[in-house]
């Protein structure tokens, strides 16, 4: 048995090394399955919880056009949640169980959504920075080794790039507007810059799962590589907007052809991961409330479907 297992695993790894997709019915190591379920469901939960900070401004959007774009964007996030829950279901996880893990606090979601949205400029900043960071994280996942996940990510990424453009456009409109509007944009950037850098996860040295995940090609760049790419991409955009990145250590490094930048406040990062973010309780409460208050609706739908089936069978 021992030899056979090893052979299966070797064959599995060989497929991955050749960039052949793993499909739901293929043999896979239990650890691969578990890691993927954790990663995909975390991603799905992030989409679901991520609806809340932006949803907070739908009723206050400053124009009919903005209201419509924002609502469509948050709706897209619900759609992404659906694709991703479905992808995780192909690995044998049930949506109800994944949601139960979210509600109990066992499953995590992106820490960024535990920060509050305080001004309209936050809608611009989230689209521009947070979706920008998400795209960097997600584009490589379109080539991830697990087929259903990769295919879900292709759809997600198409919509995310539209989201990022609309966020940048909100920022641009603010920066070209009245002084109060530009100040609003700068204030939002000040609040979101560091939490966005935290979205790439702990430093490589503190990220024990990275090596295995890279080997399985469910992760294709390390956290620090992606963080560097993000800073290099965003600093010129901030300059274009006339905004100042709130990091006094930020400096172009000619030798590495990239920016040097200050260190993230890792104590804050771990506090938020442990559930002590400024809105952690509120976000989880909002999701739990929606679930519990919707229980009677789901029960009614099931009961009605059962009655229909019974009548059809009796007829």
């Amino acid at each position: 048995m021992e030899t056979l297992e090893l052979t299966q695993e070797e064959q599995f790894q060989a497929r991955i090394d050749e960039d052949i997709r793993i499909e739901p019915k293929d043999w896979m190591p239990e650890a691969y399955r578990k890691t993927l379920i954790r990663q995909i469901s975390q991603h799905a939960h992030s989409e679901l919880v991520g609806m809340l900070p932006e949803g907070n401004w739908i009723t206050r959007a400053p124009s009919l056009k903005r209201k419509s774009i924002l609502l469509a964007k948050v709706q897209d996030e619900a759609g992404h949640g659906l694709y991703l829950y479905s992808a995780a279901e192909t690995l044998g996880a049930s949506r109800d169980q994944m949601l139960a893990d979210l509600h109990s606090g066992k499953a995590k979601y992106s820490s960024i959504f535990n920060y509050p949205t305080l001004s309209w400029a936050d809608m611009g900043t989230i689209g521009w920075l947070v979706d920008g960071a998400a795209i960097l994280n997600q584009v490589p996942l379109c080539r991830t080794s697990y087929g259903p996940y990769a295919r879900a990510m292709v759809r997600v990424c198409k919509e995310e790039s539209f989201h990022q453009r609309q966020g940048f456009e909100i920022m641009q409109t603010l920066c070209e507007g009245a002084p109060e509007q530009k100040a609003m944009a700068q204030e939002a950037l000040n609040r979101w810059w560091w939490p966005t850098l935290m979205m790439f996860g702990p430093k490589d040295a503190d990220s024990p799962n990275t090596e295995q995940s890279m080997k399985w090609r469910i992760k294709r760049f390390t956290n620090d590589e992606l963080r560097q790419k993000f800073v290099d991409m965003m600093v010129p955009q901030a300059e274009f907007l006339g905004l100042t990145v709130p990091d006094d250590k930020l400096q172009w490094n000619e030798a590495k052809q990239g920016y040097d930048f200050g260190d993230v406040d890792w104590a804050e990062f771990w506090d938020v991961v442990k559930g002590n973010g400024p809105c952690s309780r509120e976000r989880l409460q909002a999701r739990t409330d929606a679930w519990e208050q919707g229980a009677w609706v789901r029960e009614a739908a099931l009961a009605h479907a059962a009655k229909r089936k019974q009548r059809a069978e009796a007829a």
Partner: protein
Amino acid sequence: MYASTQSIALPDVAPEVRQHLFEYVLQLADTSLILAHRLSEWCGHGPILEQDLAMANISLDLLGEARSYYQYAAELEGRGRTEDDLAYLRSAVEYRNPLLVEQPNGDFAQTIVRQFLYDCFHYHLLLQLQASPDRHLAGIAEKSVKEAAYHIKWSAEWIIRLGDGTDESRRRVEAAIASLWRYSGELTTPTPTEQALQAAGFLPDYAAIQQQADTQVARVFEEATLTVPQGVFMQKGGKTGRHSEHLGYLLTELQYMQRAYPGMKW
């Protein structure tokens, strides 16, 4: 200052008819916007992810419809106001939506009943408006009626599920009907503006629409094993600016940015 960007010419009518048309189109716009706004309050808080998506979808349809009406109303008025001026800078007493659509979301049953009662009217109205001699209005109706057909399918299915689901869902949907039915009569009770437009041939007779809506309600309620209320006193006033107290709060939120930062571009 203000140039028309629309390809369809404005109707060639007497100034007072044009004023009535402006007021009526604004009423349609306010109605779609307020209901869209209410539905958007559900976003992220729905009972099932799929229904979160459905409500956002309907909200987006209604928002799109509202924008078409506001843009057309601004043209009819011809004073350089924009869709946003009309939506964001009018007070509650100037709003012309019927009382039904401004009622709070309540539980999912309240939202569904409000939606279904409105959909029954909205769908049949749009079917008729497609034939309006105002080609611009007819064009908006033609586009919107396809969406409204989906809305009514969705809300009718939920009325049936909730009515013929569990004891609790039945109790909740009955309570919602008991609280919202009294706002359904206003939809087909013409205001002086609507009467004038009916007389001028721009609007259909509401008796026929009411009959079609009633038939549809009766059919769906029967399948849902629910009883159609009889002899309920009908509230009205929203369409002439006499709203419930809920609208002021809704507009406070809706208009916050435009009121706090006047005259800016977003």
